[in-house]
């Protein structure tokens, strides 16, 4: 007798590819450092997306070829990048006016925890001895028109990241609109977490077991629209 095969969700690249499909042509987008950055590689052909980096560039392009970088052309993660045709540079107050003034269409961020009411915790584990660092996360969630989270559904040790209420220090209250995980796409609505799409071979009950809050199945509703 063989053990049942554990279902496997999307890889990080597959998650990025899936999230990229939901970004509209012409959108101005800020991608968080880490997993969300991968989305830039998977923008569907024929769509033009303008990437914003909060340290002062709209129209961010990929990393430069070796030897062609400029240490003064970097992204928010302080990695060297390039500027696309049509790019612009600006100072920090203007950059955050774009964010805080509601001019960016979308940001995609990582998460430690997301609560069923849309609260996000993604900047601090509150650990004793950790150096607190917030960067632009609180500004992004307070100002950008739509806030998506891209994250593994559970932590490495299997703890759900989608919870009834966050235990880590909050980044913002009621700010998350949508969550892309390896297992599902989940909308955060006034009713709580609603599954709008399951990853291939993943069942609703499998996701519900790994979610520490009530989970609704809105797939039919979506399909009927």
């Amino acid at each position: 007798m063989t053990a049942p095969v554990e279902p496997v969700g999307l890889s990080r690249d597959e998650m990025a590819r899936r999230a990229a499909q939901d970004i509209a042509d012409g959108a101005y987008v800020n991608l968080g450092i880490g997993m969300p950055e991968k989305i830039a590689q998977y923008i569907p052909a024929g769509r033009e997306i303008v990437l914003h980096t909060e340290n002062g560039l709209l129209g961010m392009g990929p990393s430069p070829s070796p030897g062609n970088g400029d240490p003064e052309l970097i992204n928010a993660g302080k990695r060297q990048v390039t500027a696309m045709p049509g790019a612009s540079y600006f100072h920090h107050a203007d950059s955050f006016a774009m964010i805080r003034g509601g001019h960016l269409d979308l940001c995609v961020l990582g998460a430690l925890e997301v609560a069923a009411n849309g609260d996000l915790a993604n900047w601090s584990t509150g650990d004793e001895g950790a150096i607190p660092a917030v960067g632009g996360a609180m500004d992004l969630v307070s100002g950008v028109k739509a806030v998506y989270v891209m994250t593994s559904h559970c932590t490495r040790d299997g703890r759900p990241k989608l919870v009834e209420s966050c235990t880590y220090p909050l980044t913002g209250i009621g700010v998350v609109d949508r969550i892309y995980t390896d297992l599902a796409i989940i909308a955060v609505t006034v009713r709580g977490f609603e599954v709008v799409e399951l990853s291939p071979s993943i069942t609703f009950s499998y996701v519900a077991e790994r979610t520490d809050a009530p989970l609704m199945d809105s797939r039919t509703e979506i399909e009927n629209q």
Partner: protein
Amino acid sequence: MIDKRTASAADAVATVGDGATVMIGGFGEAGSPIELIHALIDNGARGLTVVNNNTGSGEVGLAALIKNGQVDKMICSYPRSANSTVFPDLYRAGEIELELVPQGTLAERIRAGGAGIAAFFTPTGAGTELANGKEVRDFGGRPHVLEHGLTADLALIKAQVADWHGNLVFNKTARNFAPVMAMAAKHTSVQATTLVTPGALDPEVVVTPGIFVDLVVHVETPAQESDLVANGASYP
């Protein structure tokens, strides 16, 4: 006649005294005025409050200033760095104070300080621990946090091109906090890679008008922080 050029980086930091607040431009190494920071180390002023997005890397520039014991308090949004232990070690030992500010609030507090705005309300940070102890008021049914404008005694910034009037043009993402810091400090000193005569810069491309700048030092070949760190350099 207006001529804001000065020959030495020492002159550029000469107005600073013990206990001063110093804004230092830069986001990571982009726009970090290394030569002016090193002049501030040579100057020896202590008990400083420093405003910068980060806390420097390696043991050069801002990290060296902190390591040299001249900084009592950092005001910043992201004090961690992949390649520096100077600030984290002092912070864990309780030997340096940190005021952690969301990055956009930091930029806006500096801009407000420079524009004569004492304080403003923003939804950023509402309901988080960074709003603890701050006045919160509802606007349009949404909680907003009262944040105060930030000013400084001295700003140190790096420009790509400056003219003698202090009109400035920056290099790519090295611009970051420099234009708002130049506005918010009583005295702003600039290190410029290229110095030109008034009239050589097209007024349409000037990013920071000279009214916000007091002194300009020509640093023709500025050190790049990542090169210094890669070479294990330290200062002094």
